[in-house]
């Protein structure tokens, strides 16, 4: 798994063609709301449990 593959997958999922220009001020103090964190944790748990088809 290469850095390029991870970036490519993220851009594809977000339908972006390049990395958005964000600076530190944008994210400083940004709070992750509970419902977003809950969604993240649920996906994380599912990915640890779920079996994908793979090759």
């Amino acid at each position, binding site marked *: 798994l290469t850095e390029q593959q*991870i970036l490519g997958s993220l851009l594809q999922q977000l339908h972006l063609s390049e990395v958005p220009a*964000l600076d530190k001020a944008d994210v400083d103090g940004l709070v992750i709301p509970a419902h977003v964190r809950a969604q993240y944790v649920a996906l994380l748990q599912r990915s640890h449990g779920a079996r994908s088809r*793979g090759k």
Partner: protein
Amino acid sequence: RFSQNFREVVGRFLLSEASTHLLVFDMEQRLPPHSELVQAVLRLFQEPVPKAALRRHERLFPRSDRARVTVQWLHIREDGSNRTSLIDSRLVSIHESGWQALDVTEAVTFWQQLRRPRQPLLLQVSVQREPPGPRGSDAHRLVRFASQGPSGGGQGEPQLELHTLDLRDYGAQGNCDPKAPVTEGTRCCRQEMYIDLQGMKWAENWVLEPPGFLAYECVGTCQQPPEPLAFRWPFLGPRQCIASETTSLPVIVSIQEGGKPRPQVVSLPNMRVKKCSCAWDGAPVPRKLEP
């Protein structure tokens, strides 16, 4: 003939397109545990055509001595309905006799996906006119397989050959031993590999979670089987150590919405290796049994 309302239309059997046989194989306990099915071969004994019949056929249909043998997997669903899937199809000549081999690997792969208790393996073998339609000959009528009908007597009964690989010898070994270095002799295994997202320039101020993750990778080699196969898949390469199961990775990123940054969850598919296996490079990926 049975209705007052319809004028009856009499028909005649003009062409006999095919003769069909159903083969039943009891498969329980046939495939050893911890084994991988490499190939399944159906062998049918084609009986020699009597010379007189051959001569008669050649008079009627010169230059046309072939028939098509087709194997379909028959699945009888729980609700009693059934479906067939085409598995293999080959041309045979009425001048030949002896064991014919058909590749039924996919039928056994389908059968393996059935829920237990599983029905026997049902193979529908049909001998068809080739080519179909009025241009073909009656050669398919002369193709007979042994043990067709009561007079079979067990001689030359259909055989199902199962080629399997013992995964204790030819498979992967799960996770690598973190204490042992990976060398050429290491058997295929899953090794920890940590991806530090925080160390990636492009992720700065964009990827909020996670700071990094265990992606794993498949390392090591696989033992190659010595035996030649009855059917050689033309594109087959060596057995390699590959990621046979992967899972996705959820991440939280910051996206701009209305000029303001907002956290959003995104799931990245196939980011983490769940399982490593030994698999033939270039082997066809078995079809999944549709419900």
